[in-house]
């Protein structure tokens, strides 16, 4: 098969995918992705486990799905929502997605950073040596900056995996 034909087939497939995904996006109230109402996520039965676990969780009255699953900043937030909304719609329609659900790398990073949106104060002290975006408490005038390897942040999810919803 020539590269051109491959290209055409690929384009056709992508087009079909957009159509199918787009269809679900509208039909299954994919626009829910653009609101902050958690019930909107639960529009998809796939999300039901997480929704009901969230309802029983410690953050139910303080954080919605989007507080943890979309990044800081207006553009990034809607970009993530659109991207996820599209991919999840596609998954929902084709039925092809991991079982049990697994958070993807990018979304994991978003969640990880989401905690610090609200909890910087309490975690300030433990992040003292890392300077991960928030004020770096340089303690001494002669403070040389540390080698990069050690700038790793403490991950929150490692210990607090189930704060959002305990499904596992």
């Amino acid at each position: 098969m020539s590269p051109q034909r491959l290209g055409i087939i690929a384009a056709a497939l992508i087009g079909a995918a957009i159509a199918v995904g787009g269809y679900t996006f509208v039909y299954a109230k994919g626009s829910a992705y653009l609101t902050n109402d958690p019930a909107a996520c639960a529009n998809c039965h796939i999300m039901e486990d997480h929704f009901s676990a969230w309802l029983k969780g410690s953050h139910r009255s303080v954080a919605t799905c989007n507080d943890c699953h979309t990044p800081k900043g207006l553009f990034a937030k809607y970009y993530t929502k659109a991207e996820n909304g599209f991919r999840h719609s596609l998954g929902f329609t084709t039925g092809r997605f991991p079982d049990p659900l697994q958070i993807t790398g990018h979304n994991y990073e978003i969640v990880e950073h989401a905690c610090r949106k609200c909890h910087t104060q309490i975690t300030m002290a433990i992040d003292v040596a890392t300077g991960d975006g928030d004020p770096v408490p340089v303690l001494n005038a002669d403070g040389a900056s540390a080698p990069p390897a050690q700038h790793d942040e403490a991950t929150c999810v490692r210990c607090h995996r189930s704060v959002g919803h305990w499904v596992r």
Partner: protein
Amino acid sequence: TNILERQSEARNPFYRVVELNDTITDPAVWGKNFPLQYDDYQKTVDMVRTRYGGSEALPRVPDEADPREIVSQSKIYEDPRLVEMWAGYAFSHDFREERGHAYMLEDQLFTQRQVVVQQPGTCAHCHASVYVPYRKLGDGDLIRGFETMNQMPYSEAKNHFSHPVSCIDCHDPNNMQLRITRPGFMEGIAALKAGQGVADYDVNRDATRQEMRTYVCGQCHVEYYFKGPEKRLTYPWNKGLTADSILAYYEESGFKDWTHAKTGAPALKAQHPEFELYSQGIHARSGVACADCHMPYKREGAMKISDHHVRSPVLNLDKACQTCHRWSEEELKARVEQIQDRTFELRNIAMDALMELIGELEPAFRADSASANVRLAQSYQRKAQFLLDFVEAENSVGFHAPQEAARVLGNAINYARMGQIAVRGGRPGPVNPGLPPREGAPNTTGRTTAGRPAGGAVPASAP
């Protein structure tokens, strides 16, 4: 969420009261900037016993040689089989349950092991804040200072330090990052990585923050020996961290700690291999660090900090375990103790077997110290004893790696009993690996792995 988001504009939680620098050993000075951590750090004087850990405060009458008014329980007194195991070695004179960091220096200064043997300055590496002293002795060169102190007698070395482990031993004063200050660990971990094909490993450059939360403890909670006449502190890791790899290291180099007084066996002493055993466990495999359990976060007002009261997690189960495990404290304790009880059962079986071996080998050795039976039995004693001691000396009583601890003890039992058989003239049979693990697609040849030699005929009904 708006109100909450504003919280994120938090300020530096610490007030710089003093300027810290790389020459300040005294934790009280550091404590001016970090009073909460310092408060907890001082609590390591507490003595509370758990079923197998912690420590018990026993009063004693101080004397001139040893001014301590409180000591922890004597392990050799509680289990005299240890005296037999270590016959002829300083440990048979004094060996106590270890206690909090606050005591590390005085316990080393006043142990009877200092009285019965002249110890080298090397000892201080893990019992005192030697970072500043090493640098001073080496004119700014840490490694040179280390080498110099190693070669002093302990009685001389002790004039160079005065604090137990202090902030500066784990932290960079400029930014409070964790760092490794101990040459023994720097060299040991580099040897380990080299053995795994990673050249030039520099722990302070290459380790992640999460690894550092384990490595700072691995500076001291490890198996070690003094290499050569320079008494260089060495962690025997270049073949790996398992008990077997370390034993193989000593077998290859022919090293012995001492000659067993009753049987003449070239014996080895294992010492606190917490880092090594932990490394074989499911927690290490899951990225859980020493500090996660022994220095868990605790809430202090609007902050959370690392609990610098380093101690048995059994005394602190809610913070140490419950963020990851939703079981009740009672249940968590029961889980720890079930693991420890099983380990302890095998440890006792191995210990009894070793006692029988020593009891039987001693007269044989007296009768003919060069006989083949005695030689063979001595080699089994060496192995059995090292493996048993590996778990015995490890302070979690198996918790850090339950199945691995049991595996090591199973081997110890085997060697001790083979020693008894050797004394009686028995010789080991062939070692069979059993069927080689295999997997994958169905085999269509109709034939399985060829039968192995030992142990009975292949029945007619085999495929």
